[in-house]
């Protein structure tokens, strides 16, 4: 057996020195195997008893067949209103900027503007992608719709703008749909009633879900367009708010139902609840930057004076290593043990 120095002797050495003091047998492999069995059993028991959440996804079809907090007059009113904002370019997606459109970005941090520097990488043209292109598909089998689209295409931008403004005002006051037509007070809406009634019908039947996805390919795994469209409406956020998942509800930490969520995101989501981040449109960029800085502080903690001394000021270490300190004190009290090997306490 290799001779070891005494506890007191070994404890004098600097932190980086290899430990030459008393040791004891410690079966690492056995410890790992036991840990593996314990964790596997725990996970299996939790899985059997508590299962996992699986709330079904929202489709355009579901959205178009329901009312929302923003538009509660008739099923699909929120859908049509959102579709109008996509067409007139005022929706959150249409006014986003990079990466979906080129132009000025939505957020920046002081002079840093990475969103803008990177530019448009994921082209999305809401008026065309969400409204006009699906309608053109449908128009192949619908002469009335084809005529309406022809009228739309032929009109000037000013004319289109007038129709859209009128239609949106009337839509907000509309209270019912009859025979597939949104009932509007008389007014100058051009081809929009035909177009929007058709779009609503497509949406309510599920045809729009497919039109948004399929584009010109058969296979796809990219849901950017339907997701952006759905998220522009109030239906998705209504459901999220009901489940405490909204940003202002510490939503980032939460999970649907009574499941635990992501408690480790508490600090990230906390900033969204406090001033000044509650009062700025740049909250995302500012909070990301703040979290970057805090993360760097955690990463470089050993090199940061003050922070790295906290373990000394909050001396939990005295409790953790109490057996060691007791043995050390005994040895020191008995007079220095010199270089004699000692059994581990």
């Amino acid at each position, binding site marked *: 057996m290799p001779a070891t120095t005494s506890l007191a002797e070994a404890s004098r050495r600097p932190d980086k020195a290899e430990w030459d003091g008393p040791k004891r047998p410690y079966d690492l492999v056995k410890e790992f195997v036991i840990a593996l069995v314990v964790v596997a059993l725990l996970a299996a028991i939790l899985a059997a008893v508590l299962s996992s959440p699986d*709330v079904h996804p929202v489709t355009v079809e579901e959205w178009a067949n329901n009312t929302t907090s923003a538009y509660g007059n008739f099923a699909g009113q929120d859908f049509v209103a959102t579709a109008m904002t996509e067409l007139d370019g005022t929706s959150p997606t249409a006014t986003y900027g990079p990466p979906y459109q080129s132009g000025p970005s939505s957020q920046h941090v002081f002079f840093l503007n990475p969103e803008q520097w990177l530019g448009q990488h994921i082209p999305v043209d809401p008026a065309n992608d969400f409204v006009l292109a699906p309608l053109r598909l449908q128009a192949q089998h619908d002469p009335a719709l084809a005529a309406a689209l022809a009228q739309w295409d032929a009109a000037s931008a000013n004319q289109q703008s007038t129709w859209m403004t009128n239609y949106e005002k009337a839509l907000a006051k509309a209270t019912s749909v009859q025979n597939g037509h949104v009932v509007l007070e008389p007014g100058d809406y051009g081809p929009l009633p035909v177009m929007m009634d058709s779009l609503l019908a497509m949406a309510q039947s599920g045809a729009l879900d497919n039109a948004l996805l399929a584009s010109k390919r058969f296979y796809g795994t990219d849901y950017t367009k339907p997701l952006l469209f759905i998220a522009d409406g109030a239906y998705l956020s209504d*459901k999220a708010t009901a489940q405490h998942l909204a940003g202002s509800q510490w939503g980032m930490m939460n999970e649907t139902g009574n499941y635990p969520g992501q408690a480790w995101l508490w600090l990230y989501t906390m900033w969204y609840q406090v001033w000044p981040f509650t009062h700025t449109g740049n909250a*995302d960029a500012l909070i990301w930057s703040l979290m970057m800085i805090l993360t760097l502080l955690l990463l470089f903690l050993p090199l940061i004076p003050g922070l790295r001394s906290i373990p000394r000021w909050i001396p939990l270490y005295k409790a953790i290593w109490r057996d060691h300190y007791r043995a050390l004190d005994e040895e020191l009290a008995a007079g220095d043990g010199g270089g004699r090997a000692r059994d581990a306490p």
Partner: protein
Amino acid sequence: MSADATGGTAASASTTAYTPEDARPLAGDERMWTARLRGWAIRAFPPGKLLPDRQPSYVASWVYVFGVLTLAAFVVILVSGGVLVWRGPSWWHLSKVGLFFNSIHLWSVELFFFFMVLHLWGKFFMAAWRGNRTLTWMTGVVSFLASIATAFTGYLSQQNFDSQWISTQAKDGLNSVGVGAFFNVMNFGQMLLWHVLLLPVAVAVLVVLHLLLVRHRGVVRPMARQGDPKDSAEEAPGTSGARR
């Protein structure tokens, strides 16, 4: 092989037993990259250090088990994730067995973060970065961050209401710093592939580095209390072993 004066592999040519001398390169081969890598690996991690059966006497607290529990949870995550890969991403929505394995995957992730954070708290209050162990601390922190990213892409890969909400919300934060331009959280295919390949590999590499560093440096010794005798080359706790 011919015998040579540097004590090369002549002995091993005639026996089947491995001796440490076998690791030494023949004369003239010392500059081979293979030989140098082998030499470095053996010096840094002799077998007795890589898999020791003894630990210093101060390694005697339940706080020390959180690291291995985190590692065990990681293995359960990988295995349960592997089962989900085996049957594809739609399986758990359609099958009760699939749902069960998805649940194991979810709860092992909760346990993983549970034990990882306790491990972090423990190592923090033990100031475990002392004695040239800054890199050990740092690989741990980066593993934590990579794990969060992996969990994030996992939530995005669920193909249910959760992933719809998380993706449409998270896109704003990522876009604001330019990351969204090439990392599209609404692109299920991309997120699933990052979740199943790129990020787990990153976490695994970091964990291996972290473990090798722990074995290489050994478990950090207890902090010296005020009044404890210490050699003159003592460093204050919290430094990384700079010589005075």
